Structure formats: C-alpha cells, structure tokens
C-alpha cells in the first residue's frame, strides 16, 4: 500500500474509529454512572470520540500527510461525518430513553394477549408524560423550579427545538402535527 492510499484509508476509517470510541465510552459511562443524565453522558462520550478522530489525524500526519491537508480533511470531511454518526448514535440512545412509541412497543412485547386501549391510555396519559419530562429536565438542569413556576435554565433544548421547528416548516409546511 503506497503512502497516498494509506492516508486515504486513515481518513476513511477516522470517523468510524471515532464512533466506536464514543459508543464504547458511553457504554462504560452508563455502567459507572447509571443515574447520571443521559444527555450529559452522551456529550462526554462525544468528546472521547473526538479524541479518537484527532488520533487518526495524527496517524495521517505520521503516514506522511502535511498538517494543512489533514486539518482541511478533518474540518470538511472527517469531522462532519463523525458529527452525523455521533448525532445518529445519540438519537438511537435517546429513542430508548424518551420515545413514547418504543415504550408502548415494549409494553406490547410483554403482553402477547394484547392491551386494551383504555389501559394503555391510563398508563401513558399526558400527565404522566409531563411529570417524567419535567423531572428529566430538572435533573439535567435544563429547567429550574422556584417552588411555583418553571423556567428555562439552559438554552440548549430551545436551540434544538428552534432548528427542528424551522425544518418542520421547510419540509412539511407546518410547525406542529396538531396544527395545519
């Protein structure tokens, strides 16, 4: 394998190595800190993955690539690919954590005889969903409660919601499934 091919292979593998690093470190963190906020653990694991990505760039330089080219490759290609993979992984994890559909699916999996609609609605009413979400956001310090009212403490979820709602408008022509 010549130098050029070796460098190309390193850049191809870099985001995958970074993703595996992120996934393994996330699994380890969840085992060590099972009660920690899942978003916080994902962020920490993401940084471990980033360290893996940087390590692969160093290997590319050691293989003969000049620093400038490595930096451009990392910023334009390897970095964005890792960002997409890390985002996909984070959402995959969050599905198991927060998805109502998956929770309902789990209940049905445990009930081969089926579940009455009224029984499901009693278990998964909007009030229960509210309590779970408020507790999660308070634990992750995204919300603050002063004994009477809830306020936003961190802006990160609002930033995410702004992007999502803008995309909904652009792609689907509406901002909510409950409005036309």
């Amino acid at each position, binding site marked *: 394998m010549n130098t050029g091919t070796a460098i190309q292979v390193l850049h*191809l593998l870099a985001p995958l190595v970074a993703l595996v690093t992120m996934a393994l470190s996330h699994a380890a963190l*969840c085992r060590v800190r099972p009660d920690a906020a899942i978003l916080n653990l994902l962020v920490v694991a993401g940084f471990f993955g980033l360290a893996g990505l940087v390590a692969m760039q160093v290997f590319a330089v050691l293989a003969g690539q000049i620093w400038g080219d490595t930096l451009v490759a990392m910023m334009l290609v390897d970095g964005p690919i890792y960002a997409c993979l890390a985002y*996909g992984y984070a959402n995959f994890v969050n599905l198991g954590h927060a998805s109502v559909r998956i929770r309902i699916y789990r209940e049905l999996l445990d009930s081969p005889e089926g579940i009455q609609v009224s029984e499901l609605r009693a278990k998964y009413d*909007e009030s229960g969903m509210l309590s779970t979400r408020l507790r999660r956001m308070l634990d992750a310090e995204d919300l603050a409660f002063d004994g009477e009212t*809830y306020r936003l403490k961190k802006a990160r979820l609002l930033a995410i*919601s702004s992007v999502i709602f803008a995309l909904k408008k652009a792609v689907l022509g509406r901002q909510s*499934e409950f409005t036309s």
Partner: protein
Amino acid sequence: MSVFIAIAVLLGVLFAVHLVWWRIALPRRQRAVLLGLFLVGGLVLAPVVDLLFGWLGLQPLSFIQWLNVGLAVVAFALAYVVTYSALEADSPTLSLVRHIASSGSGGVREEELRDFMASRPFVGARLSALAEEGMVHEREGRIHLAEHPYTLFKLVLLHRERVLGLTRHGG
C-alpha cells in the same frame, strides 16, 4: 477537497429532490422512502458526479475516496432520517420547552403545563402512528403487536438493556 465537493454535490441534489417530492406528494412510509432516496439516489448519482468531475477537469476520485463519499452520504442519510422522526411527530419535550420559553422570565405554573399537554394528544398520535406503520393492530378491543418483528425498536431496546445496562423504563 475533491471528496468534499463530491459529497456536497450529491447531498445537495438529493436533498433538493427530497424537498420538491415532499411538497408534491408525501409518501406513505416517509422514513423508509427517505432512506431509499439517499442510498439508492446516491448510488445512481455517483457516476454522474464522476463524469462531471472529468468534464470540469477535476482530479477523479480513487475507489477509497468514493467509499469515503459513500460513508458521508450514509452518515448524513441516517442522521437526517433520525431527525425526520422529530419532524413527523411533535416531541413532547421540545414542545414543552418552547411553551416555557414563550412565557419569558415569568415562568410557567405546573397547572398551565398540564393544560398545555392535555391540548396535545401525544399518546393518541403515537398509537395512530404505530397503527399506520403496521406495527400494531386492534383486535376485539385490544391492541396487539403485528406479526412481523420491528427490527429497529428491538435493536434500540436490546442496546439499552444489554449494552448500556439501563433497566429503568424510558418514555
């Protein structure tokens, strides 16, 4: 740089096709069609991009570099399809956050939040979505899982319970 240009052209064209198609007619199984569009469309367009490079006098990509482009398209497609779930169905958490933020520094009382949640039938909408996707069906007044296994959900649960060791229920 050539790799970046190839990725940008492929994703740009595929995303434009997606936007136009969705405005004309929403497909029934939106996420599956979206994934197919990016993956199959990417494979179809790649030789066209290769021809374009030759026409523009750009250095052609090697096989390894095309694999890199493929990885980028797959990674973006998966990330976008995952995001699309949040576009299709309102996220209770993000809807709550927007509602709390809109109240400004005054904050929101819990009763107001309960009224807000009650006005949005998230659970009913999720049950309808599961039925529409063929994952569940109703029989004699009871909801049952469809006969075929839903691989993604099984993978998510397996990962959560066996890999992460999280036994607390989510949802």
